[in-house]
Structure formats: structure tokens, C-alpha cells
């Protein structure tokens, strides 16, 4: 184990699990280390959902208060630590987003698929995954996120975009359809098929 507990990236689930365990035991020091290890990633995520810094800060703060209160309910059998924490922050961010209603401009959602496009490039050129330019390495993805990225990279670009728009911006089928200028029935079908494909691909442990 490293001498400096803060030198390990947030993507080490065993270490995050230990910190959550200690947080459940009301260890304020461990909670701080957990915050230092994960807050940048979770803040980046909240920012992507809410797009306004002050709202993302609120979501992050609400999220960590809830993590402190509910750490004892974390079940290591059901979810990786980062997934559990991201779910807590996601729920807080979506509460804020829904409360805000029109405050967030839903008419012009920027396309933020750069990461996925980079992933697709890597998966289309096998052998490149070991290079230092691997986007999954740059983002220090956990193994769960890596597997998902590899499976999503196998979806067709527009299908992946539909899934990403819905997930990151809490859009309905018809809102996604408006963003992509496509009929809502088409979007519904794409999303449904994409979810099926992701489930199958993840169950296999990744694209073949």
C-alpha cells in the first residue's frame, strides 16, 4: 500500500471501498481522503449534467453530505464504490436540474461525445489501446467504466449519442429526438436496442 494515501487514483475500488467503510464508521479523516480522491471526477460529472458551476458545486456538496449519511448502506456486493458515489451525486444533480426547470437551457445541448469518438478510434485500431494516448487511461477510468466505454464504442455513432444525451442531460425520448432532428419512434428504437446491446456486451466482459 502506498505511503501517501492520496497518490492512488480514484479508480482503485478496493481502496475506495476501504474509505467508504471507514466513512460508515464516522471517520472524518477517511471521509476527507475519499473526498480528495473522488471529488474532481464527481464534480466534472455534475458540471456535465448541470453546466453551471454554482449548481454543480451544490450537487457535489449535497452528494457528499448524503454519502456521509448513507455510507453504512453501501453494499459492495451490488456496486463498485465509484458507481455508488456517482449514483448519489447524479440523483442530487438531477434533483437540481428538475427543480431548475427552465433555468437550464435544454434547447441547445452541446454534443459532448469527444471521449466516445476517441474510444471508437482506439477500438477501430487495435493495438493502439496500449499507447499513452488511450483516452481511457487519460481519464483514469475504473475497470467498470473501461468495459462500458469499449462496449459503447461498438454502438453506431448516432445511437451512442442518443444514449449519452439521455444519460447526461436527463432528456426524454422526444427531447433526444428534437436534439438529433429525428422522429421519436426512431430514437426510442435506437435507445432500446443500444441498451440491449450494452447488456449483452457487458455480460461478455467486453466487445469480442
Amino acid at each position: 500500500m502506498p505511503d501517501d494515501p492520496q497518490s492512488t487514483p480514484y479508480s482503485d475500488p478496493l481502496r475506495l471501498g476501504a474509505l467508504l467503510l471507514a466513512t460508515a464508521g464516522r471517520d472524518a479523516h477517511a471521509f476527507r481522503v475519499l473526498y480528495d480522491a473522488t471529488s474532481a471526477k464527481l464534480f466534472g460529472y455534475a458540471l456535465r449534467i448541470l453546466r453551471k458551476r454554482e449548481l454543480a458545486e451544490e450537487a457535489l456538496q449535497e452528494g457528499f453530505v448524503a454519502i456521509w449519511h448513507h455510507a453504512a448502506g453501501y453494499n459492495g456486493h451490488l456496486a463498485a464504490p465509484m458507481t455508488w458515489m456517482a449514483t448519489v451525486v447524479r440523483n442530487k444533480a438531477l434533483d437540481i436540474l428538475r427543480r431548475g426547470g427552465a433555468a437550464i437551457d435544454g434547447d441547445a445541448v452541446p454534443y459532448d461525445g469527444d471521449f466516445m469518438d476517441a474510444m471508437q478510434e482506439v477500438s477501430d485500431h487495435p493495438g493502439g489501446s496500449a499507447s499513452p494516448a488511450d483516452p481511457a487511461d487519460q481519464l483514469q477510468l475504473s475497470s467498470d467504466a473501461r468495459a462500458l466505454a469499449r462496449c459503447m464504442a461498438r454502438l453506431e455513432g448516432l445511437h451512442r449519442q442518443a444514449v449519452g444525451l439521455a444519460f447526461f442531460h436527463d432528456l426524454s425520448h422526444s427531447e433526444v429526438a428534437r436534439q438529433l432532428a429525428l422522429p421519436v419512434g426512431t430514437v426510442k428504437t435506437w435507445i432500446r436496442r443500444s441498451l440491449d446491446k450494452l447488456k449483452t456486451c457487458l455480460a461478455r466482459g467486453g466487445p469480442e
Partner: protein
Amino acid sequence: MNIRDNQALRERLAAEYVLGTLKGGARRRFEGWLQRDAALRRVVDEWQGRLVPMAEFSAPATPPPSVWAGIEQRLRLAPAPEDDAAGVPGWAAWLARLSDSLAFWRGLSLASGAVAAILAVTVALRLPTVPVAVVDQVATLLDDQSQAALVVTADTAKRALAVRVLSDTPVADDKTLQLWAITKAGKPRSLGILPDNRRAALALTSDAIGEDVALLAVSLEPKGGSPDPNGPTGPVLYKGTWVKVM
């Protein structure tokens, strides 16, 4: 509408609930089902495990210090807690409290080695503020479903062995749980019984943690313990191994 028997529909609704495309009345209806349907909650958990890692695709951004300051203030977190008034090092106290958190421990149905590794990491994290090592060995005993059922901790300094049952499995009034150390040669040594079948504080001897101990086991015995001093007479319910944490 009854969705209990429609597995494909349950999967689809759970996936769209997690993704966020399930909206309005359909979402509220689904949340109503969730409250009454544990199996459906599990399907949702699985979809969260699949889709929420997408969160990590976001580029990290450092939050301003005011966010932590706000958390610290709202939770009234004392800066770096020292030993508490009873003289019990903080982490030993949390370990004790944690053992009470049944759902949490049961959820950690990892191999006992992994559980101990988690403990070891946490213990090491706390070292700067803990002057004396207390618990130095931990064993998580698993049931036949590999669920953590019982935690045994050894404090060699105080020569104390603490046992806590985590599982809710009831023990009949005329039965007693008994803890054994099984040697590498396969010989069982009784370490003591759990009088109330929930927990026990036992004396720690080399019988329990000696180099020759291969395994800890808990058996179900007649009231008062096994009538055979050489070994269990009832079924072995839980098994596990010691892992040094210090």
C-alpha cells in the same frame, strides 16, 4: 398493470429508469413498483452498475475549497479526531460500531482476504492518530452461500478475542454456537461458546492464533456446547481464516 411476470418489460423499464428516459407518470408508477418489489430493485441496481460508470467519461474538474468547507460545516466534522474519552482508539471504536452494521458487512461478501485487505488499508490510513495497535488479526467467517456471517477479531495485547454474529439466522433455544480453531493437522480446538448466540468476548490463547491454526469454524451444538471435548458434534455453519491486519 402487472409487470411481475413480464421479465423483458421489467428489464426495459429498469434500464430506461436508470438512463433517465422514463419520465412523468410512467416514472412515478415505476417508483411505486420499486418500493414493493425487491427483485425489481435488484434489476435497477444491475442497470446502475452497467450505465452509471458513464459518469467517469467526464473530464475531472477541481471543485473550489468552499465545497468541502460547506460539507465540513453541515456535518460538523471535528478536525482529525483523537482518541475518545474512553481511551479506545477511534478506529477500534468504528470497527465495533461497524460490526453492528449488519447489512453492510453482509454486503461485503468478498473472500475474507479481501475484507481483511480493506480493513488493513483503513487501519494503515488511521495509523498516524492511533498510538497503540489493538486488533491485530481479523477473520470473517462465511456461510455456505459465501456471505459474511460472523466476524472474529483478536487483540494480542489485551489477549482478547471478540466474536460478533452478523447473520440473522435464528438459533434454536436449545442450541449454542461454538467457535473452533482447526489446526493444519485437522484437529479442532474449542475456543469457547457464544452464550447468547450473538456475540462473545473470549480469552485469547495460542490455541486460537497459533501458527498451526489453519481455519476458524463455528458449529451448531447442544445448549452449553459440544459434549465431545475433541470436536464439534453438530454441523459446521461458518468458516474462515485469520488475516493479519497489523
